[in-house]
C-alpha cells in the first residue's frame, strides 16, 4: 500500500518510492532517497515532526517534508 510518510503509524516500515517537489536534494544528505527502507519511530502530536530510522540512524523530519515523501508500506 502506498502512503505518505506523514500518514504512517508507529513501527510501520516501508520503502521510499517517490519524493515530491524539489526536495530530493534537500533530504539526500540525510540518507533518504528512492528505494531506501524507512521505519516510523515516533510521531509528535499537533503537527510536530516525525522521527524515522534510515540505515540505523534516526532522523527527525518536519511534517511538511513528511507529507511529500511517498512510501510503499509493508503489510
Amino acid at each position, binding site marked *: 500500500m502506498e502512503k505518505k510518510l506523514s500518514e504512517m503509524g508507529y513501527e510501520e516500515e516501508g520503502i521510499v518510492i517517490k519524493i515530491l517537489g524539489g526536495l530530493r*536534494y534537500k533530504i539526500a544528505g540525510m540518507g533518504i532517497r528512492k528505494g531506501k527502507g524507512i521505519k516510523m519511530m515516533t510521531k509528535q502530536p499537533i503537527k510536530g515532526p516525525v522521527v524515522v530510522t534510515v540505515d540505523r540512524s534516526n532522523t527527525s523530519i518536519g511534517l511538511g517534508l513528511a507529507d511529500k515523501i511517498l512510501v510503499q508500506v509493508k503489510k
Partner: protein
Amino acid sequence: MGQANVGKSAFFNRLTGAKVAESNYPGTTVDFTKGHMLFQGEYVDLIDVPGTFSLQPKDKAEEVAVKMLGEEKEALVICIIDASKVERGLYLALEIIEKGYPVIIALNMWDMAKSVNVKVDTEKLEQILGVPVVPTVATRGEGFKELVSRMGQAAPVTIEEIIRSVGNSSRTHH
C-alpha cells in the same frame, strides 16, 4: 568536514592536541576552531567546522561550515564519515569532491561499525572514489598514523571519473 556526530572534534583534538569540547551529541560544535598540526615536517592550519548534512546549509552552524569551505580554496579536506552509515556520509563527501577539493576520507567509529556488524570494503571504496579511505577510531587514536601519512595522497578527482569507476565495478552492498 562531516555530518553531525561523526567525531570531527574528537579528530581535531587528536590531530592538534587541543581540547575542543566534544560530547556524544550531534551539534556540539557550532563555530569553527583553528589549530595546528604537524604534517610532512611543518605545522599547518587545521580547521574544525560544525557538522553539515550537505553543502546546502539549512541552519546557522551548517552555514559556518559551508562558508568556511568556500573561503579556504587551497584546503585539503578530511571528510569524516560514520563507518556504520557510509551511504549517508558519502553524499557530503561527493559534494566536496565535486567542488574540486583534494579529499581524504576517514571512516570513523570503525569499532562501533564492527560491533554492529557493518563491514566496509575500504579498498574497493578507494578504487571507486580515487581518494584515500582510512578506517579510524578518533577517541582511541586508531588509524591516525595511516591517516596523516596518506594525507599527501589526497588529490582532486572529477565526478565523471567516479561515475566511470562505479560503472566498471559491480555494486557492492554493505
